[in-house]
């Protein structure tokens, strides 16, 4: 091993520590503000440790808006989209990776090409389709299109499933399994790492989605967490302790899930980002 000079070591840690502080300070500041009495945020210089520490902002924020409903809405949409996406993407991935069929290459390229099209192009027509279906102000526009169209997911799973040895399938086929049984018994269990990666991405992406709910949802009882937070901002622009308590409430589940699943999260990105 080559010994690193002390000055280099100090510089490395200095950059990392300063960077890490910049990344975490906003969260600490949010938490600190959410525990203050409203008057205390106007002291200068600002205090990090609130005195007194109050927890009232949390029940106040919770009761000011239907947070519980928003959690249920967000959870329902994210779970539906995640499960659905895993199913449809793994089905398509299996077809592209293991079945030789007419037009396979062209259809695959076509699906990949759609990744180039910005969402904004299809926003207006898709809105009009849902408007015709009377699906505006329901959760369907947020649940159906993502499940039925995820080129990235198809690509990721095709790449992964292609790496599953053909011998496994052949053995199953000799045992009399048809394609559907092969898909459930061989492909799905062996594609778990890629499915986990796609699940994490899809769940987080759906949970944090903002533009979709902003366009489609009007009734407060249907709001998702980001939309609720956004409407909260309009109502309470001056009460920062309340706004920060609301932000904290909305971020706790994502940060919690991340801290628990971070190993898979990072693997998921590595897996899906580059092993193309």
């Amino acid at each position, binding site marked *: 091993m080559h010994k690193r000079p002390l000055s280099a070591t100090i510089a490395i840690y200095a950059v990392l520590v300063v960077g890490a502080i910049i990344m975490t300070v906003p969260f600490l500041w949010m938490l600190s503000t959410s525990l203050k009495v409203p008057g205390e945020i106007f002291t200068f210089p600002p205090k990090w440790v609130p005195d007194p520490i109050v927890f009232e902002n949390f029940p106040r924020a919770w009761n000011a808006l239907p947070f519980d409903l928003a959690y249920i809405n967000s959870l329902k949409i994210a779970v539906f989209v995640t499960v659905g996406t895993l199913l449809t993407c793994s089905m398509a991935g299996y077809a592209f990776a293991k079945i030789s069929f007419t037009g396979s290459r062209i259809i695959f390229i076509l699906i990949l090409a759609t990744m180039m099209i*910005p969402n904004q*192009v*299809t926003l207006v027509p898709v809105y009009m389709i849902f408007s015709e279906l009377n699906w505006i102000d329901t959760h369907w526009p947020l649940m159906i299109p993502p499940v039925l169209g995820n080129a990235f997911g198809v690509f990721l799973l095709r790449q992964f499933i292609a790496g599953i040895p053909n011998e496994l399938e052949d053995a199953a086929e000799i045992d009399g399994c048809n394609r559907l049984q092969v898909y459930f018994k061989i492909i799905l269990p062996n594609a778990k790492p890629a499915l986990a990666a796609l699940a994490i991405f899809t769940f987080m992406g759906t949970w*944090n989605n903002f533009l979709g709910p902003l366009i489609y949802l009007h009734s407060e009882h249907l709001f998702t967490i980001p939309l609720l937070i956004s409407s909260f901002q309009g109502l309470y622009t001056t009460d920062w302790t309340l706004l920060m308590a609301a932000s904290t409430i909305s971020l706790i589940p994502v940060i919690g899930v991340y*801290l628990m699943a971070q190993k898979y999260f990072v693997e998921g990105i590595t897996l899906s980002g580059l092993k193309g």
Partner: protein
Amino acid sequence: MMLKTRKARDNLWAGFFLAPQLIGLLLFTIGPVVFAFVISFMEWNIGSKAEWIGTENYQEQWSDPLFWKVLGNTVQFAIMYIPLTLIGALIVALLLNLKVKGRTVFRTMFFMPVVTSTVAVALVWSWMYNPDYGLINAALSVIGVEGPGWLTSTTWALPSVVILAVWQGIGYNMILFLAGLQSVSPQLYEAARIDGANTWQRFRSITLPMISPTTFFILIMLLINAFQVFNEPYMMTKGGPANETNVIVLHIYQTAFQFFQMGAASSLAFTLFFIILIFTLIQFKFSKWVNYDA
């Protein structure tokens, strides 16, 4: 004969497994793209009858000073956001790729902003940017600098939005860079060391070329992200002050869902599509520096 039936069976199975994605592709992408292209040549305001007006929407939008303003803002956003995120992520990845203590903790801290919703963290940043009681100006006053009214200043509003986007974007791209760095063979560095190459030379002639496919991928994704930025300016400034942070997607959103001019919004969306397409093609054209032999 046997072969033929096998092929036919395979086609049927493929059709079955592909059906959900293909139906979605037709209903929610290909169909709507064609539909949007047609609408972009129509005067179609919700509630009124659609009317064919040729290229009038495009002419009207392109001669609107606001369009050039939002396009200019978007380009300015990209010019600040792309290099800052790219270089920031690369530096952190290079450092975390070294043998340092607490790598996992650092990685967690840098990644935390990535998983959080932009809507919530934009709220937090708005409070930090508060000119009178916010954290940033308080920190600046310690070193004797009087900070501006970040989000209300025509000079600082756009950079303020960029800072939030960079803060949130570094972690994700850092992981991509880390993955790229870990695939570089240690033998290459060893050989270069024996040849007497110093740290900078090793970085310049081994690391940079070996991670160039990663860099290229990140560059293209950042470009697409930059042109599609919406949540940050919507939450922090609603496009203000004086349209200084109004960007293309915000403009499309307002045209379509606040003024209900669906035809005009579609022409804007297609303009955005072509801009992204042209920039992406230019990047591919000048991608000789990307080395795929790794």
